[in-house]
Every structure is written in C-alpha cells, then in structure tokens.
C-alpha cells in the first residue's frame, strides 16, 4: 500500500501486489463494515450497489425485514449509472471515488490506514503471468486472521456447481480477446451516431445501455459478460467487490488515453462539462448530497476525488500498437456519417455460427469506401434478448461463413459482448426496448478485401462466432446490420 502523495491516495495494480497485501485485507474489512449497514442507509454496500442499478426481482438479499428507502429516494438516487453515453466515464469516476471515501472512513474506524486506495484490476498487463485470473484474495473464504472474507462473497460465472470451479482456479472466464486495448487508439472522445469514439456518444441522462463507446465496449462490457454472475447484470454488478476494481481499471484507461496522445482530449462542449447538459447527484461519505458535472471530475487529484494511479504509462507504446490493432497515426474521425448498406432481414444469434449478408445500396460510393479519406463503420443495430453473458466474435468477409474456415470466417472485426442486452430490451427501460447497438470500425478490413481483389459490394458477409455459449439456447436477435461511411 503506497503512502499518500501530496494528500492524494495512490491506486495500485492488484495483479502485482504481494499475497494478502494490506490493500486486500482492509478492502475486505471495509466492505464487510458497509455490508453490515441497512439497505436504506446511503452509506451501505447495498445502497451503493443500487445506485448503479436495482431491481427487486434480482435482489440476492431479499428479506422481509428489509426496509427500502422511500420511493422519492429510490427515484432520485438508484438506477443512475450512465451507459452508452459520453457520461459513462465521468459518472463512474465520481461513483467510484465517493465509494472509496466511504470505505476509507470504515477502514480508519476499524484502525486501518488512511492512505488505503481502491486497487485496479489490470487484466491486460502482459508483464505478469495470468493477469486475467482472479486472485486468491477474492476467492478464499477467510482472511489471514480467520474472519470471513467479504471479497469472496459474490456470485461469479454462471456455473451451477457448488462450489463453482473459479473458487479453486481463479478462472472467471476472461479471455485475451476480452481485454484487448484497441480502444486506446480511438479518437475523438465522442463521435457522431453510426461512428465510434473513445468515450461514448453524445446523450442526455442515459441510464440503460444503447450505443457504447470503444472503451465501454471493450474491455468494460466484455469483462462484465465474461465474469457474469452478479457482474453480468446492471442490477447486481455493484454488489461484487471485483466490480469496483474492474471499473478502477476502466477509469485508469481514460487517464492513459488522455496521456498517450496530445490530440486525445476530453469534450469541451458545455453540454458535457456543465449543468447546461446534465448534472448528477451522489451521497458523499458524510451522508450529504453532492451534485457534480463532468467538469468536476476531469482531474482525479482534485479534492472532490483525491486519487491517482501508480502506472498510467502507455501499454501500446512501440511494438504493442500492431498487436492491439491500433494505428500508429490515429485516423481522422468523420463529423457525420451516412448509411451505405444494410441487411435485408433480422439475424438470430445462436449457439453456432450465424451469418448475414449486407449489400451496399446501388448508389453508395463503393469505389471510395475504405479509402484514405473515409472511415467505414459496421453497425450491429437493435440487439435484443436476455442473455447478458453471451459474447460473439464478429468477422467480415466476402464469402458466407459456410464457405470460410470454421473458426476464422473472415477478417476479425471485434468482439460483441452482450452485457446490458437484457436491460436494453426491457420495454420499461428509458428507451423502451430499443436494445443494444454496437459499432465497429472496419475501414482497414474493407481496404484489405479490396486489395485482395475479393471485395463485392453486393455480397459483404458478417459472421458471428460464439466466444461464450450459454447453458441454454440464447434468445438474441439483431434488428439490422448496416454500413455507415463518413
């Protein structure tokens, strides 16, 4: 555990900490103390998790003695997490920091250190073996002093076994594909509809998911889908102590992104920065209501937040770029995009490979698609269903999947995690069952197909290969697949 630096706590990479570092021990004790508080207490673990999302039907701790907060409190403070939005990063930054303050207070009250900081889970760290495995500090039932370990008290993966395999192995299903860092190459922070930016599209208050920015898509959504269990649902994710370590890493990637290229900057639009757009509210560690905007959280060392990361070096410096699929020179993002082609029918995603044909419209400038001046985006639109844990690899090719290699049917476009699909398909959600929409930048793929001489404007095939399969038959359906160019 590092000392404070100028009064600012230092968040460390949990995959590099020694066994049972005090960071883990005090995290467990702090979580246990917050769990002991009543549900309606704003400083309780369950209340804080409900801020992210809460549905009574999914509450794993229902009890007749539970007193819910009043409807007014629930409407104002619960189900607030911002997803599919340019507010995804700033909202979660404040959410984590405010919880960190509460944990520090609990830890200090128990006699622990004031410099405790939330550790981050750097599952992409190539300097250690198996960074994607969950450490024993999140699996052992007891702390070194023999007391129950709150960090292990979570439902992870969807294994029906008791105990599930991850308790012994640490394998919670996170694959190398889930933790790619291609998002660090996207710019600008926000992009027009149909295109892809780093942080998410311009929206107002946006609770349920919709169209994710690059870093939200991967590794945020993919790790949620991989770990599944409580992490697999908006309404239970915050209950798992690993959720906060995962989001600390996502937050750290924001810092890394801004630092790695002087052209990578946060939005300057007043609608993002200030209450002219949206302001949010959270309870602080003293139980007072604090209002904030994105402007208040751009500097992690500011008094409102008070933390920094031990390592914000660029993981993609030098040779790492090509491996991550990141261009050395960031491509110029378009200001607007237009529809160039679309599938004819919805696509049902199953346990096997699914395929769809996308034909460019006769009048689309196919000759220019994939040129230096133009970006091409694949939009997987209106994905509905309930299987949050499912994940598919998406390939693009000129031939149908049946004619291509079974495991690599085409050029790899990216990963399609279904985290949030259930929430986005709920008719009572903020956008009434519109489902998820994912965007992939396939400019390079289009260029490769043209160079290989196999480009066919009437026959572009998009193939979905399951990375993670559910126990049952997935109920996922894609409304439309389209190509946008700009």
């Amino acid at each position, binding site marked *: 555990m590092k000392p404070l630096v100028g009064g600012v706590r230092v968040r460390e990479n949990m995959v590099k900490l020694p066994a049972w570092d005090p960071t883990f021990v005090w995290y467990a004790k702090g979580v246990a103390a917050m769990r002991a508080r009543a549900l309606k207490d704003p400083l309780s673990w369950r209340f804080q998790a409900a801020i992210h999302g809460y549905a009574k039907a999914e509450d794993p701790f229902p009890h007749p003695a539970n007193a819910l907060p009043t409807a007014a409190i629930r*409407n104002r403070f619960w189900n607030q997490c911002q997803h599919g939005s340019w507010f995804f990063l700033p909202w979660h930054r404040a959410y984590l920091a405010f919880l960190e303050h509460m944990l520090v207070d609990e830890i200090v009250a128990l006699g622990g250190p004031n410099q405790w900081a939330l550790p981050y889970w750097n599952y992409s760290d190539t300097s250690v073996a198996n960074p994607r495995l969950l450490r024993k500090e999140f699996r052992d039932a007891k702390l070194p002093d023999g007391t129950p370990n709150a960090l292990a008290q979570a439902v992870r993966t969807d294994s029906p076994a008791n105990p599930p395999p991850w308790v012994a192995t640490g394998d919670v299903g996170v694959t190398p594909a889930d933790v790619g860092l291609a998002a660090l190459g996207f710019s600008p922070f926000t992009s027009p*509809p*149909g295109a892809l930016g780093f942080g998410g599209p311009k929206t*107002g*208050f946006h*609770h349920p998911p919709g169209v994710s920015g690059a870093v939200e898509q991967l590794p945020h959504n993919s790790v949620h889908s991989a770990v599944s269990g409580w992490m697999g649902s908006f309404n239970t994710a915050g209950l798992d102590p690993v959720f906060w370590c995962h989001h600390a890493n996502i937050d750290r990637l924001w810092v890394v992104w801004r630092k790695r290229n002087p052209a990578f900057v946060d939005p300057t639009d007043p609608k993002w920065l200030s209450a002219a757009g949206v302001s949010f509210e959270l309870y602080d560690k003293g139980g007072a209501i604090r209002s904030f905007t994105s402007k208040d959280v751009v500097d992690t060392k500011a008094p409102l937040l008070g933390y920094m990361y031990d390592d914000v070096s660029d993981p993609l410096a030098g040779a790492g770029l090509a491996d991550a699929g990141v261009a050395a020179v960031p491509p110029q993002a378009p200001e*607007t*995009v*237009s*529809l160039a*082609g*679309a599938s*004819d029918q*919805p696509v049902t995603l199953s346990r096997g490979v699914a395929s769809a044909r996308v034909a460019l*419209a006769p*009048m*689309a*400038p196919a*000759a*220019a698609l994939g040129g230096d*001046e133009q970006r091409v985006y694949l939009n997987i*639109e*209106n994905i509905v269903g309930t299987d949050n844990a499912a994940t598919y690899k998406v390939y693009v090719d000129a031939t149908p999947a049946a004619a291509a290699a079974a495991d690599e049917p085409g050029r790899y476009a990216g990963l399609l995690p279904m985290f949030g699909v259930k929430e986005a398909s709920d*008719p*009572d*959600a*903020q*956008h*009434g*069952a*519109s489902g998820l929409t994912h965007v992939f930048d396939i400019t390079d793929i289009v260029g490769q197909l043209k160079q290989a001489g196999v480009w066919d404007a009437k026959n572009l095939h998009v193939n979905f290969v399951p990375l993670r399969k559910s126990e049952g038959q997935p109920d996922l359906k894609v*409304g*439309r697949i*389209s190509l946008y160019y700009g």
Partner: protein
Amino acid sequence: MWTRLCAEAGLAADDLRPRSSPEWALAVFGLTAIALMATAPMDLGMMRLCAGGGVALAASVRASLATGALANAGGHWALMTAVMAPLLAIQPLRHVLFRSYAWRRGRAAAAFIAGYLLVWLAAGIVPLAAALAAAAVGGDTGVRALGLGLVAAATLWAFAPARHRAVRRCRRTPALAATGPRADRDCLAFGMGQGLECVFVCGPLMAALATLSHGPILTIATGLWLWLERGRGGAAAIASALAAATLGSVALLA
C-alpha cells in the same frame, strides 16, 4: 470530397449529401400551424358546439354541423396536433432519417409523419364525441363541465405508472428496414406506434385543452412541457400532475 465521390458514382452531389437534421422543416411546419391558430377566423375549441343544452344528441350534431362549429372543432384539434407534433416528433424523426439512405429520407419522413398524424387525428374523435354529448345535455355549461372533468382526469393520470412507462416507450429507436416496401411499412408503423404512445401519454390533457378553448400560447406551453418531460424519460409524477393541473386551470379560466 463530396463532389469527387459523386462524380465517381455518376450522381449529382445533393444525392449523397447527409441530410438528417429535420429541425428547419419541422420549425416551418410548426410555425405555420401556430400562425393559423392565431389568425384563423374560427371559433376555437369545442365550446361552441351547440347554442343551447337539453337537446337530443342528433339535434346537437345537426346544429353543430349547420353552424360550422363541428368543422371548427375538428380543425382546432388538427391545429393543436400540428403545433405540438414538431416538438414531440423530432427525436423519432431524427432516428428515421439517420437510419435511411440519403435519397429516401423524404419518403421515410413522410411515411413516419403520416402514421403519427393519422393516429392523432383519429384520436380527436373521442373528445369531439364527448363534447357533443356534453353540449346536448348542458350546452356550453355541459361542455365546460366536461373540460373540468378532463383536467382532473389528466392530473390524476399523471400519477399512473402505465403513463410513466409509456413516456419511456416514446423514446424507442427501433430497427427499420432500409429499402423497399418493408422500409415504407416500418416507417409508417413506427410513426403510428409513436402516435399511439403519445396519445396514451398526452391524450387526456390535450382533450381537456381542446374542450376548453384557448389560443396558441397555451398549446405551445403544453407542447414544451411534454417535450421537457420526455427529455429524461419522464418527470416525477407530482411534477407532471402539477403541470397538467396548471395548464388545465389556465384553459378553464381563459
């Protein structure tokens, strides 16, 4: 770049230029409707449906037809719809345009708007029929009493969870086919679906205002409130109820 792309595709530049911002067209449409509402030489609303009360419904209808009051009332409902539609339909219309090819956007927009307005215009039959019946029973006083009842109903309706859920469904952005008859059908169905959700959410308040006679300012104020309410996927029920009660009371006292 656009000129070069178009030359390669053998098209005029306008065919490919992105045009997915309908604000200007909607603004012209709405302002025209406001101007008509403000200046048209017609008696507004349903207050003039019958010169006196205590007559049979059939007689009331005949009298209203003869005086032109029925036509005026229907025209007023249509104008109210036209004034509010730009504010309430702009978000779904943007979705239609963005999901359409550039050269079909006019057609897609027309299908959506046709579906939306069709539902709203048909919905006007209900308050009109109620007002005729009220006029037959009690004349102007009867219609006014109906308006008061509709204001109360709109206020109570604001607390209904079903209404709150419908506000969220107003923000749907469904999949739309890109070409062919399916595209036309999808845009029309989307417009009608939006219209139905809108009627479900706003219908009681609109019916109250239409019954009580008022000018364009109250119509615009109502449209602005409904647009703001929709902006965050719904407002607190008490805020919606207060808005309905306030707008209705202004119409009552006007």
